[in-house]
């Protein structure tokens, strides 16, 4: 990945594509700015005028409710105009290529794209083709990255645990297919978390996962020992057909977060989940609804963090003349 897609010539964040390659200070700036947006969300009028007159297109090639909605609310609270598109059921079905779709939206003077796609690397590929003044936020690409989720998780961890440099964090479940896990591991490493553990069955942990700077555990009891933070991942039920796990019941017995297993963690450990949860599969309802769970605060924080990301990458974006938009695509 080339740095000039991540940062502009003034060292300002240009596109948010991944967590890898971000400076520690950039992540801290995002978290600090998000803290101020939390206060905006508690006011009578939950809007600030930063992105007035800007157009944000939520381009979700892959289904999502929470992420798309929180991006939409975030952009609206920044006073942007927001368009939601689900191209898998519109133009791409008619044979339009991805870059043609983007080109058409650019021609409508889009200022910021928020993109989710099932293929890894899509956000990067689109960003490479965008003109200078247009920005992109990756809202999840394949197994590769989900940077805003990692940032909101980091924000939530800091909210409850204050300091990253003394923490033990366990991430449990399907690490292999999880862009959430990958991005979060990078973020926690950059923020200086000294003890990051991944827990799951052999079939769902990448073979060389230690290279990411984590330790690997197959036994959940041992893995949760003395941790401050437990991050549960969603088990995608389609993994069952690939024979990666034997049965739902056995998975729950071994890796479902129950009060009994959580007792291994510190008594003030928090439980996180990016959603949507499978109750009774990766997490027991009792734990999900307990006072240890910060799953709903994660959602609220997600709005503030996405506001911060959009505000930081759109700031200074209006300087200079707008170059002509690329001419591509045709009538649809």
């Amino acid at each position: 990945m080339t740095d000039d897609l991540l940062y502009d010539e003034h060292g300002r964040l240009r596109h948010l594509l991944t967590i890898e390659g971000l400076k520690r200070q950039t992540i801290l700036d995002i978290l600090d700015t998000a803290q101020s947006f939390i206060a905006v969300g508690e006011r009578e009028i939950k809007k600030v005028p930063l992105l007035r007159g800007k157009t944000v297109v939520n381009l979700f090639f892959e289904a999502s409710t929470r992420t798309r909605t929180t991006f939409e609310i975030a952009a609206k609270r920044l006073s942007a105009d927001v368009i939601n598109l689900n191209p898998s059921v519109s133009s791409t079905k008619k044979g339009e290529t991805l870059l043609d779709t983007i080109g058409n939206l650019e021609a409508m003077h889009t200022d910021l794209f928020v993109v989710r796609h099932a293929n890894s690397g899509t956000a990067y590929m689109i960003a490479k083709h965008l003109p200078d003044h247009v920005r992109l936020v990756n809202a999840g690409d394949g197994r590769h990255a989900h940077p805003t989720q990692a940032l909101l998780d980091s924000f939530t961890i800091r909210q409850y645990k204050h300091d990253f440099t003394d923490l033990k964090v366990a991430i449990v479940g399907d690490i292999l297919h999880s862009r959430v896990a990958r991005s979060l591991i990078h973020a926690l490493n950059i923020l200086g978390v000294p003890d990051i553990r991944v827990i799951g069955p052999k079939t769902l942990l990448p073979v060389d996962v230690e290279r990411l700077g984590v330790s690997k555990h197959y036994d959940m009891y041992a893995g949760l020992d003395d941790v401050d933070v437990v991050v549960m991942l969603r088990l995608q039920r389609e993994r069952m057909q690939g024979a990666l796990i034997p049965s739902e019941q056995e998975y729950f017995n071994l890796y479902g977060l129950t009060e009994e297993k959580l007792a291994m963690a510190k008594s003030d450990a928090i439980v996180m989940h990016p959603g949507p949860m499978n109750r009774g599969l990766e997490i027991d309802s009792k734990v999900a609804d307990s006072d240890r769970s910060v799953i709903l605060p994660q959602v609220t924080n997600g709005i503030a963090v996405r506001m911060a990301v959009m505000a930081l990458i759109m700031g200074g974006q209006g300087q200079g003349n707008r170059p002509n938009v690329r001419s591509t695509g045709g009538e649809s």
Partner: protein
Amino acid sequence: MNTTFDIDSMLDTMAGALRPRLDHNPLMIGIHTGGVWVAEQLHRRLGLTEPLGTLDISFYRDDFSRIGMNPQVRTSDLSTSVEGRHIILVDDVLHTGRTIRAAMNEIFDYGRPDAIILACLIERNGHELPIRADVAGQSLTLRPNQHIKLVRNEKDGTLALTLQEANE
């Protein structure tokens, strides 16, 4: 130009001018960062009991699309409602008036105050908007390349004004 400022007497002047205007449900709000320092001093001199409100106007600046956001934005803290209040808005230096415009826009996103008056330690020339101080510690005429800045000694909390001259 070698100017020394007697900030204490400027603050006394401001407090004296504000005291007769405290009858109607006053709420003092300082603008980060220098305005909060001045407001803290006035708040103490006037014996106000209600906590001071603070505003960070970063989300309301009119130059956001030109220069971007200051990542060191602080949280605005208006714990009490501004609805129906007589607000004393405090800043350190009134120059172009753009900060005050942004601050007023932000205040109205919290509610509808009955009135706002503006108190500034220094009111200098160079206004770009029809905004004037109702109460000022001192008025100054400076050249466009001169900038006056309030600084605080982190050890003892004392305030000082420094005059800087940019090379032309």
